[in-house]
């Protein structure tokens, strides 16, 4: 029998102490502060970019029209000129070129990993691809500069095509390889999540593995795959070091992919490394370019998020 001893119990137990309550409230407050820092970061990014972009337009006396349509970047002359299109073109070339490399390879690897690969091979391949994603982008840039470009030069020189040391083509290749793991791992998650019953129904109707993979599983998880594509393109647009080392920083609009280009990110690095003094029009132009970059990537990321949400709602 358990003997209830209210007397002795009461002497040890006095309910939740005031100290404990205060501690609980204080930690809750502190933890909320931590979460608040992330919001403050966003506000600061928007504030810094927005504020300095406004002062860029004020200091440089460049109009909105010239900013979006001009094709010259020149801060040395008496009247500074700045046009975004050459930088947008560079970024566009890298985004499209790297997608041409990364999207097919990434999607095929995702299909292989989710549909074809035996479990043991998959357990080796997945971490290897993740490892690839963890390699610093500067290493990819160095690879473009020392391996891909010399190789392109030796292959294309006999054909009479001159390949510059910094060229858009190697930039597209390395950035493409860089974002493959992103596409493959996100798409693989989505493809593997496709309901088993769909696959079994396909096989029951006599479809081959290829038909099940491409005509049942892929369409069923299409929006998830699309979201991973958008995310990968957004990453390619924001990529800096690989592009700087591979594609150079010469702002020009040329259709020849073997000449140098300048992306928005490369421009930002070039301005910081240059002699632009604090508060000058050139210094402030990096904020205007940064604002454009931030806006584009934010739109793409939100689009990808919206697509994923719709995919999650549509799958049972």
């Amino acid at each position, binding site marked *: 029998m358990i003997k209830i001893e209210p007397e002795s119990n009461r002497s040890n137990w006095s309910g939740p102490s005031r100290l*404990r309550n205060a*501690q609980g409230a204080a930690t*809750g407050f*502190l*933890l*909320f*502060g*931590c*979460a608040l*820092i*992330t*919001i403050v*970061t966003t506000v*600061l*990014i928007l504030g810094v970019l927005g504020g*300095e972009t406004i002062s860029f337009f004020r200091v440089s006396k460049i109009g909105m029209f010239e900013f979006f349509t001009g094709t010259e970047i020149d801060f040395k002359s008496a009247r500074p000129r700045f046009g975004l299109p050459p930088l947008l073109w560079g970024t566009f070339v890298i985004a499209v070129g790297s997608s041409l490399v990364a999207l097919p*390879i990434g999607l*095929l*690897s995702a299909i*292989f990993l989710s549909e*074809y690969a035996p479990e043991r091979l998959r357990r080796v*391949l997945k971490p*290897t*691809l993740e*490892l*690839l994603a963890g*390699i*610093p*982008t*500067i*290493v990819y840039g*160095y*690879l473009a500069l*020392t*391996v891909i470009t010399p190789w392109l030069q030796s292959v294309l020189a006999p054909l009479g095509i001159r390949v510059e040391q910094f060229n858009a083509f190697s930039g597209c290749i390395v950035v493409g*390889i860089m974002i493959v793991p992103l596409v*493959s791992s996100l798409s693989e998650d989505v493809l593997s999540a496709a309901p088993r019953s769909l696959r079994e129904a396909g096989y029951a109707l*006599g479809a*081959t*593995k*290829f*038909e099940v*993979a491409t005509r049942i599983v892929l369409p069923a998880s299409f929006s998830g795959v699309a979201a991973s594509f958008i995310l990968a393109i*957004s990453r390619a647009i924001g990529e*800096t*070091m690989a592009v700087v*080392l591979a594609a150079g920083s010469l702002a020009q609009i040329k259709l020849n992919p073997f000449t140098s280009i300048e992306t928005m*990110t490369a421009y*930002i*690095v070039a301005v*910081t490394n240059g002699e632009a003094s*604090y508060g000058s029009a050139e210094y402030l132009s990096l*904020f205007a370019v*940064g604002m454009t*970059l*931030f806006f584009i*990537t*934010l739109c793409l*990321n939100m689009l990808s*998020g919206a697509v994923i949400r719709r995919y999650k709602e549509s799958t049972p």
Partner: protein
Amino acid sequence: MIPAVAARSGGDFRPRRLRRKLFGAAFGVACFVATSIGVVVLFIMIRSVVVQLSDVPIFEFLYKLTGRFGSIDPDRSGYKAGIWGTVWLLSLVIFLAIPVGVGAAVFLEEYSAPNRLRRFIQTNIANLAGVPSIVYGILGLALFARAFGLKRLALGPTLWTGSLTLGLLVLPVIVITTQEALRTVPASLRQGALALGGSRWQVIRDHVLPCALPGIMTGTILAISRAIGETAPLLMVGAAASIPLVPRSPFDRYTALPVEIYHYAKEADPGFKPVASGGILILLAILFLMNSVAIVLRNRRAASNRG
């Protein structure tokens, strides 16, 4: 009725089994080739870096590189300042970003009710994780290095500026991975501890966090190993390559390993190629070490969960 339909469709039905099977197999092979491209590229990359060092005893060369400062003479260049700078940055980022990141994750997972505020913070973190690193560099430049032109508050191109910038950069990733780790903690553990009269904070401190710790550490190590390789934001906030000094306090100027690699890679003098390659090998070795620790932790967690 039914037999007639079957007979008619029987005439149209051409399974073309062989063709479809062969095509399917070819597609499977194509998928395999695509997957192996990644692995092959990794191999080529490391080989091309090593090949440039083939005529020197490699470990001796790397050891020499770690002991010398950068210089205009490729034979006397090294990464001493860069490695120390990176170690400083790493420790400061750990000190700054992990408490805040884990705190924010605990707030979102354990404290906050699933209301509009929480959804807002969550969306915001997801968006921050997708912001290009160079934008963080711009933020660090304007906010920490120059403090909007207020000379008193400006930290200049010091270690504090670099680590605060990198800290903000890794924060969203740390929050997201910590949240994932916290979600794997079984609800029964919390309920048990709460039933015994623990306060919310006691339950988190004594039970939830220790249980999620391996997962948090794995995610955090991976996040921070990303930060080590980041070059663009550091270039923005003023990690100059030409600093022949090991920093002694967070208020010192500094340089970082990837920044030095960038400058050597850009040099026109081919003599700097082995130096850049050696730097990349050192950087990859550090990352490999950190990733191995993370994987060991992950596997140990998987083993203990099973047992």
